[in-house]
């Protein structure tokens, strides 16, 4: 599987080594980290959850699409769930390709589609003691 939901910290060294390929002259890695603020509120920690069975399928489809659309050799993505503290890595996406352009494009495609389509949810815990499910709380 090229996409995986994980409950444990993301092993970036192991993932990056999977991108090695004799035809690859470029390697692009995106890391998404937990930041201490959102929409003007001070954030203490995040709680991610996922519908794992479908998330893994949809994530795999996104990787396959990236390989069809862009001239790349390899691509992987992992998303962590559970309680994450400020600075923890929530998501990792990496691509390798012959030349840099397609790696930039494919990496962006993967992370954008994962954020838009994969059933993963984020609950922000604020310093003031309240919580919100992002994209849900203000949506009727």
């Amino acid at each position: 599987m090229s996409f995986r939901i994980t409950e444990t910290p993301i092993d970036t060294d192991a993932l990056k080594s999977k991108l090695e390929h004799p035809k690859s002259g470029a390697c692009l890695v995106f890391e998404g980290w937990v930041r201490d603020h959102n929409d003007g509120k001070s954030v203490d920690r995040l709680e991610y959850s996922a519908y794992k069975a479908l998330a893994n399928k949809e994530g795999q489809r996104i990787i396959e699409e990236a390989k069809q659309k862009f001239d790349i050799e390899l691509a992987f993505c992992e998303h962590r769930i559970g309680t994450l503290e400020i600075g923890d890595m929530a998501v990792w996406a990496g691509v390798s390709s012959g030349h840099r352009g397609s790696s930039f494009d494919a990496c962006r495609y993967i992370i954008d589609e994962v954020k838009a389509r994969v059933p993963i949810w984020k609950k922000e815990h604020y310093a003031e003691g309240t919580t919100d499910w992002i994209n849900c709380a203000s949506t009727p």
Partner: protein
Amino acid sequence: MSIDIQYFAILKDQSGLSSETLTEPYKDPAAAYQALREKHNFTLRQENLKVAINDEFANWDTPLKEGDSLVFIPPVAGG
């Protein structure tokens, strides 16, 4: 008829349930969500959700069958 529902994220919080089994003969996910929204006071409207049957995206008017597993998918927020 028996349909298994799993709840995630805001729907899990608002219902206080991870899952429940429906025995009423709802014809499709739209009918099931309408009833469950009323029962659990879900704030999200159907048009802001997606739906999955048996771990694959489905349509709101896909007929439900005995033993189906049903998941309502609130707006996602990975990354």
